[in-house]
């Protein structure tokens, strides 16, 4: 059953822009991205929006819907009251290219700074061996689809614009996935403290709230990294113990 729904979509570029109103005939089961596609096909051919898989697997269609960072392909229209106007705008933390599309290249630059996975030697038969119990933690972080909604909502990047001092939640869990990997031999703790800025996070957990993959970014990723940094740099007894025994 088609019903007319009201949309307010931000149109513009890096310089200027404004919200524009659209009416769309939507059908049962549609998500916000479907409505945007209808507007694109029928009313605003040049409306810029990123999307790919339309099933919450690729993380392309991130935007802010009624003020909340969401994947538009996983936001169902029936979440909103039938007479509610749905406001759609690009992510805030990144430079707007056009309409709903942002320049997210900063994220790719951060990833390059992270030392890659460095496994130890293989077993004699050419295999690596790890138990499922050991990889469960790492696999949670590897569910990340790089939608960058966590980067968008993180107030360190969003409000305080500290992009030089903090790599953001996405790369904190990438680091956690490497640091907790049972085969990895590289040490990233010094950089996690300094360059990547784990101390900038004040664990207000908005990254976890918006994660469409339901990754425990804060509790399972960032806080354990903070604790590992404490082990190395802040725990006086542990530091004393290391000094006395010479062990690391």
């Amino acid at each position, binding site marked *: 059953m088609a019903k007319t729904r009201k949309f307010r979509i931000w149109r513009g570029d890096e310089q200027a822009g404004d919200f524009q109103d659209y009416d769309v005939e939507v059908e049962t089961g549609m998500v916000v991205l479907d409505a945007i596609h209808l507007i694109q096909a029928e009313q605003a*051919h040049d409306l810029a929006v990123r999307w*790919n898989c339309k099933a*919450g697997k690729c993380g*392309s269609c991130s935007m802010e819907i009624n003020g909340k960072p969401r994947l538009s392909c996983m936001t169902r229209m029936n979440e909103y009251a039938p007479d509610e106007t749905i406001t759609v705008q690009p992510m805030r933390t990144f430079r707007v290219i056009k309409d709903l599309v942002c320049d*997210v290249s900063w994220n790719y630059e951060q990833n390059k700074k992270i030392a*890659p996975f460095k496994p130890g030697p293989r077993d004699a038969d050419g295999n690596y061996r790890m138990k499922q119990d050991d990889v469960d933690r790492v696999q949670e972080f590897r*569910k990340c689809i790089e939608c960058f909604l966590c980067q968008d909502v993180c107030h360190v990047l969003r409000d305080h614009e500290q992009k030089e001092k903090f790599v953001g939640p996405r790369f904190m869990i990438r680091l956690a996935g490497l640091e907790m990997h049972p085969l990895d031999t590289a040490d990233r703790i010094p950089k996690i403290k300094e360059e990547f800025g784990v101390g900038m996070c004040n664990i207000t957990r908005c990254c976890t709230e918006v994660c469409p993959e339901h990754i425990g970014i804060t509790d399972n990723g960032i806080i354990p990294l903070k604790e590992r940094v404490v082990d190395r740099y802040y725990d006086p007894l542990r530091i004393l113990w290391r000094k006395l025994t010479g062990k690391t």
Partner: protein
Amino acid sequence: MADIDELQQFEHDVLVIGAGGAGLRAATECSNRGLNTGLICKSLLGKAHTVMAEGGMAAALGNVDSRDNWKIHFRDTMRGGKFLNQWRMAELHARMAPDCVRELEEWGAVFDRTPDGLISQRNFGGHRYPRLAHVGDRTGLEMIRTLQDHGIHQGIKVYMENKALGLLLDGDKIAGVLGLWRETGRFALFKAKAVIMATGGGGRAWRVTSNSWEYSGDGLAMAYHAGAELMDLEFTQFHPTGMVWPPSVRGTLVTEGVRGDGGILLNSKHERFMFNYIPERFASETADTEEEANLWLNGDKEARRPPELLTRDVVARAILAETEAGRGSPHGGAFLDIASQKPPDVIRRKLPSMYHQFKELAELDITREPMEVGPTMHYFMGGIRVDHDSQQTRVPGLFACGECAAGLHGANRLGGNSLSDLLVFGKLAGIGACEYAASLPSAPAPDAGQVQGLMRSATDILNRETGENPYSIHSDLQDLMQAKVGIIRNQAYLEEGLDGIDQLRTRTAGVKAHGTSQYNAGWHEALDLDPLLITSEAVARAALLRKESRGAHTRAEHEGENEEWGNRNIVTSKAADGSMQVQVVERPAPSEELRAIATATLEELEGTAS
């Protein structure tokens, strides 16, 4: 038109088009070998279609069932492809896949584990043994992220959101690519000694598809225009299980892993109908009673496999037959039920993204209720014709790998063989391109007239005063292909389809995109129309020519496989006058060794390989 010297220019030894699994693997190989490597992709890095692959990558590691070896994988692949696969490619794939999977692990992929701590493997349609290395149901994500994270440290120069408009030639040799920055609408000239196509398929020409907007057949069309041959395009795989409800997600993939992990197919009468559709070729290896199928599910190694795990072509046709006989589900599909087969926590652990996909998009809990599924356009077995070992096309310097290349899968692809295809042939194409680039005495120079022609036809779409809406043309093409070049084909439909494509081509000549050149979705849509139409025409022409039913190609008036056609491939190329030319090419005989393996019994092959 501007002088091409004023264009933004980039130079590379090897340029890869497409950043899915195959493109990233090829670029990594070239970069590792010290070549200056560039990679251009239509979307952001890490968003390519590979990310949607769910079930796993097939490789005869033998971790779960030690009887498995490359010969049995090879045999399964040939049987699944109805013996139309390129023998040598199927051999290389089966032999190399295990090491490619281990290599991926070394680069950081974290696969699910066996109790011994090895890479776990799951069952899938057409594979005799549990063979798919996997990570829950997000294996493609794991693969692309691993290659991406590994690749960024290899010195590959990545050009994101850059659409390749056409291949540039110097005489008959590859000289580069003309690209378009989606963000600014500016052109970029990429000079390269060798170009590797890794652009995927063209499923976006159909209405019900699991493919994203990117799958517009760009690579096939570019290679075709540059003089390469396309092959086996009539074989378009309809995945049996796409979502059918609600309408806006119709076609979205439901992984074969659901059946691999025990899911069963039921019709509206609650009958497990797949028992009625077991082809003769697979009868001896398929369970014929529910009791035996259940034994297999519970790990009885002597039991035969349930019929839900027959090859995709068979299952897709069976679902279609059930719905047409009036035994379909309420929204025109079949019921896929795992809730009655596995406990909820197992379902949530092994199929987490399916659980969420249905929960959030269809408001259905798959741990309690059956899903509704139906066939969806999924994959091109055919593609650019390449040399079996080097992956080079007949255009010197042009290589192809992954879904856009033809050969490995024959008439039907087995689930799980595509991800391993990407790794194996991505690597081989990389090696091939490196060797070719090293052998060139000097860098070829792109033809200026060709560059200007490509730029002109792209900007004409923006510049003309009025014209047709690109979205309507695309939408009409999708309806046309769905109706006329679908799962079950016949001569009349295919001819009507070709007529329709002709009319759409005329309309496309006058297409108009409104707005500026900056990130203009309508313009990008219009630019995808030519590749979509080339691809659609090539599929329809090849389908019209092949007068038999084999694998994914079903002709209503030519039932069953025809032995003569089993020795023929259909090759498509651009004739001198610009028209599309379709030829039947006889297949070379395989080596005796490979033929013997392909026709051997399982007992003869178990535990034989070295």
